[in-house]
């Protein structure tokens, strides 16, 4: 957009006409409503969030409707909280695993979709859309029923299939197994979006390029790496960066699947840490500080992807 505006003013530099003035301001006029709406629904809450993060704001202050400014104390106390750092590392690992699985499996299923018959493709797509349509809260309930240690169908089936003795097996014993169960739920729920989008991107890969590579005798993984990948790269990158944002701040699935009664510092993810510190402990100032730190971290992480994506766009 910036480049376009520059050339526009370049070729008409000498003619200061009404047209030119109008032409120059049109993009800004067009973008103004969006900027205004963004400012109202994002800017104002963020302003309030920042203000809250600089205050001591607990239950007492909530009742008085009046906080006390304490500078950066909330940020200091969060940064000096070992739980924050442990949670951050855990959340990053969790995000990498979840995004990796989502993108890997999603791309594989999308590649599969290209090769199967129309009927199968229709069935798979319908299944994916149904998964996509399922609200997370409902999915959590289904997961809980299936994995219930006393009456769950997963234990029953695994035992019947002689995979092992899963009678009354508890799938949520350790923080690792708890987060592994959350991972299955999240990856399952995130696959449809990735599969359908990557499948759409695969349709953009020129068939003749693939054919030419095949004729040259390139193995299929080379074709994927050198022909298909570069074409679908922008889509993969934006999907990855969106997934990172979603998975880093995930709350509903872990909170409900692990259950409030089993949420402890050793299985905190950032979203849950924020909720526990801010809401459960009614320390809203500290909660606001945590959410601002999270915001900064996610922004920093997405910048890497967004910049790479822009570069890919330039090469094209």
């Amino acid at each position, binding site marked *: *957009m*910036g480049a376009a505006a520059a050339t526009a003013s370049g070729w008409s530099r000498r003619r200061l006409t009404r047209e030119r003035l109008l032409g120059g301001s049109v993009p800004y006029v067009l973008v103004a409503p969006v900027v205004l709406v*963004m400012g109202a629904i*994002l800017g104002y*809450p*963020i302003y*309030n*969030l920042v203000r*809250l993060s600089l205050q001591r704001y607990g*239950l*007492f202050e*909530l*009742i*008085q*409707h009046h906080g006390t400014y304490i500078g950066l104390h909330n940020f200091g106390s969060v940064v000096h909280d070992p739980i924050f750092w442990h949670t951050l590392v855990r959340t990053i690992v969790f995000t990498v695993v979840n995004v990796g699985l989502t993108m890997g499996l999603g791309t594989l299923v999308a590649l599969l979709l290209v090769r199967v018959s129309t009927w199968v493709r229709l069935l798979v797509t319908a299944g994916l859309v149904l998964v996509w349509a399922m609200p997370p809260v409902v999915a959590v309930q289904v997961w*809980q029923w299936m994995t*219930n*240690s*006393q*009456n769950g169908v997963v234990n029953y089936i695994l035992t019947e299939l002689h995979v092992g003795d899963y*009678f*009354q097996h*508890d799938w*949520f*014993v350790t923080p690792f197994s708890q987060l592994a169960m959350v991972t299955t739920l999240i990856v399952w729920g995130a696959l449809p979006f990735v599969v359908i989008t990557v499948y759409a991107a695969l349709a953009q890969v020129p068939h003749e390029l693939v054919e030419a590579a095949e004729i040259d005798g390139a193995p299929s993984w080379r074709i994927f790496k050198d022909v298909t990948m570069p074409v679908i790269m922008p889509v993969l990158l*934006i999907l990855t*960066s*969106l997934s990172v*944002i*979603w998975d880093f*701040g995930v*709350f509903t699935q872990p909170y409900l699947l692990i259950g*409030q*009664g*089993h*949420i*402890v*510092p*050793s299985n905190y993810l950032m*979203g849950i840490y*924020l*909720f*526990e510190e801010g*809401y*459960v*402990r*009614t320390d809203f100032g500290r*909660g*606001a500080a*945590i*959410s601002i730190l*999270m*915001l900064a971290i*996610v*922004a920093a992480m*997405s*910048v890497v*992807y*967004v910049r790479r994506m*822009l570069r890919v766009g330039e090469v094209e």
Partner: protein
Amino acid sequence: MRSRVIAAALAVVALGVVAATASAGVQRAQGNTLTVWLQQDAQNGWPDIVAAANKQFQADHPGWTVSVQYQAWTDHLQKFDATIAGNDTPDVIEMGNTEMTKYMAAGAFSDLTSFKSQFANSSNWLSGLAKSGMYRGNVFGVPYYAGSRVITYRTDLFKKAGITKPPTSLAQFIVDAKKVGVMEKGVKGFAPLYVGGEDWYTALSFVYDFGGTIARTHAGKWVGALDSPKSVAGLTAFKAFFDATQSKSTATLDGTNPWPYTVFSQGLTAANYGPAWYTCCTGAKYKSVTGQFVMPSHTAGKPMPGFLGGSDLAVPAQSNAKAAAVAWIADFTSTQNERALEAKGNIPNATNLLGSSVNERAAARSWFVPQAKHWVDVENGNILKTMLSQILTGQLSVKQAAKVASQNITQTLNES
């Protein structure tokens, strides 16, 4: 460029919304509407008593309507906080007795001291329960009802195992439970007694039975005491009891998923330790063979001290219908209604109303959590549950786990 905006926007939405907004789910008391928050226990167990109170209230206050909104224990405080932020609080709220102190200390409730005489039997209120609604000598919570914990058991299985009378000591109980276990060992997944391993109300009863406690005050500070020798003896006895009567798989369950009575109704256990109202749900098949007895102490002939759970009714400071709220509470806790609550297996709020049910006999010895502002954070931080799962799964020794929990409790209770 646009994708950066999208990314930033999504990040902001994802995080900002969580932190910055709080939606209130209540309708403001408009005109002459009294908004009352009760727990679902009332909705399931005694809706008739609620209706009776509303009827009485409306007879005395023509033109008023009562809007009773039932809440769940797990999230009612977060919802309440949201209503405080939005100046939208209910006019009456039921609070768990362990939840009161934090809110009284912050000034969330109206001082009801001057109205005390309006509440029936207020001079005979159960002292433990009344204390939970008092802060610095003033009354903020009106006792509603209490509950102790008893053993709900299958009389047919005990009889079949040759047990003629309920055990009167912990050691005898373990012997009896083992007998039932051996007899029923053909039933897959059967445990003679079923409680969730992380059900801390059960585990800490052993601590108090052995003379231990959760925390003491020393020089104006709270000190966690679960690692004291007496507490450790209690926890060790709990582990021994658990190992003798339970299947290992319940070590990490907290007794809410599945509920112990569900396991009972499936024929997979001979006994539960929990609130007296567990008889509600032991299943049609076993209704006629469901009995109850008082959990025996390790000292023969005594009951084991049970957690005295209970609820208070409070009037949020922001309510603009304080007088009506007080009148409704008085109607709801009338002698007649408290007697009706007792008939449903609860402990009524005053000593002069006490009967001799198994629940009330069990309450002869009881314990309560430390009355510290931050106790509720210990509960919600799952410190006790973590300790118990560590002990029961053998991750840590009793001493190690108790020490960690004790340190966490000291730290949490002394937060400013």
